């Protein structure tokens, strides 16, 4: 793997920060990622069962006014997909693989990926955002709750890290 093509973290951070700043000054809101799954699911549920969706406490607010997918954050994630793709292609990193330590089997890694994903989907709904929407955007706008959220992310990570170390190191 071509580790050299990773940017210097500080430079990458500055570019990321500038993208975030651009989002603030252009769109008046930060960046986010978990809005995408929420709105996609809301949209899908709206197709299958509009009544349930409209009455749902979690999704009702997305389907109330217009298409849940016609949203800045949703389009932004599509941009992320495009940008990420371009980044991977230009760095020669586009490669089908499962990232894992040599200490775990692929099946185990994927099981944990699913488990972690479910936990994060639940957590992002509960916390009204994920690392992008709460920690990064909220952190940059100095929102009190977001800083608490960010601290707890690190706390949660460090608390469990030891138990799943086989996956990674």
């Amino acid at each position, binding site marked *: 793997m071509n580790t050299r093509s990773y940017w210097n*973290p500080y430079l990458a951070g500055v*570019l990321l920060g500038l993208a975030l700043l651009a989002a603030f000054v*252009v769109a008046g809101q930060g960046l986010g990622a978990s809005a995408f799954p929420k709105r996609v699911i809301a949209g899908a549920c709206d197709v299958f069962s509009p009544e349930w969706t409209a009455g749902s406490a979690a999704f009702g607010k997305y389907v109330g006014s217009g298409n849940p997918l016609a949203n800045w954050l949703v*389009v932004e994630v599509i941009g992320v997909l495009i940008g990420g793709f371009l980044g991977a292609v230009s760095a020669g990193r586009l490669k089908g693989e499962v990232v894992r330590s040599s200490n775990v089997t692929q099946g185990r890694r994927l099981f944990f990926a699913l488990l*972690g994903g479910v936990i994060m989907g639940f957590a*992002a709904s*509960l916390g009204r955002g994920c690392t992008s929407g709460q920690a990064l955007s909220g952190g940059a706008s100095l929102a009190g709750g977001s800083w608490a959220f960010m601290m707890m992310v690190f706390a949660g990570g460090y608390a469990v890290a030891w138990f799943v170390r086989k996956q990674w190191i």
Partner: protein
Amino acid sequence: MDLTFPWLPRGFFGEQGGLLTALLIGAVFGFALERAGFGNGRKLAAQFYLYDMTVFKVMFTAIVTAMVGLYALSGVGLVQLDLVWINPTYLAPQLLGGFLLGVGFIVSGLCPGTAFVSLVSGKLDALVVLVGVFLGVLLFAFGLDGLPALEALYTSGSGEVLTLPGLLGISGSWLAAGVALMALGAFIGAEKVEERMAARLKKNGADLDGSRVTDSRGKYWAMGSLLALSLLAATAAPMLEQENPRQLVASGVRPLPLAERIIAHEPALRILDLREAGTDLRIPGLGKASPTSPPADLLPGQHVVLIAEGDLDAKDLAGWPQGPEYEVLEGGAQAWKEQVLTPLEAEVYNQEALDRAKVQNEICAWFNGTESKAVSAPPPPVIQPAVGSRKKPKGGC
């Protein structure tokens, strides 16, 4: 053209154009994430084993950059901060959600945002993570409808926009500068920690291949720029900083001018009585509210006049929504009763004061609903009906 940021909430670009910006900014975001190495689960997970602090470094550099930029721009008046959406605070769900997200993060190796980036760089595990996220979202939606406890947890908290500058009582720019300086210190520490941890893990024979970044040539340069940025923010912005627009600004209004505005039927005027009891203000269309629970139907741009028993402190209204302009009745209900509902009896000496008093007393009578009685007049003499033809031109419409 007023080019003050943010643009989209001001209708600049229109809807289509706005979505186009989302695509562009998102692409830059995704590109930067990928190039920082966030498409690789192992590299992210390394943060939690302290041998590669890229996540910390990138994230805090980004936060500091955006934060310093945002507060500096708003400090010099280029950004209208009250149009920028800032995450409201729901402390309990945020604390728990954050913790769980951290758990999910280390279990899966990716967070939702980085999972998207990882996915498009071909990583199969990212696809599985995303499937999990979608399931998790659905699970939560079911849970929210089915479990009252979860709903109670989710909806607990005020949902107010509490910013650190507001909570700590210092200006945003200074805080940004402070955070930047702290981050700088933290980065230096992080460099040290990761070197030591990496060495230790290597010694223990851990498999770090493919995740460890060894190249850190630009770090001093980057730190230097951040320091410069933070200094800029700390010195320039506070000098130019205006009153923090996030603060709920309540100006005062005196009873008589308020009475005149009621008479003028000012369309944006909305008057709310914050007292628990009492219907003695005699203001037409007066609404009731409690200081802790603002009415749900307040409209942006409305002029909301709040009446308490006595003077009301603007600080008491911390939980009121942004959008309307708040005014508090100076002296509260007491002043209203004294100055508007009580006729003037004091002696007046000059013509001007006399004229004012006349108006004031009529306003008083009107609010009190005491119609000035017409003075009864002596009946005029009885008259004889006139003779002659009566001409009455008619017609038309």
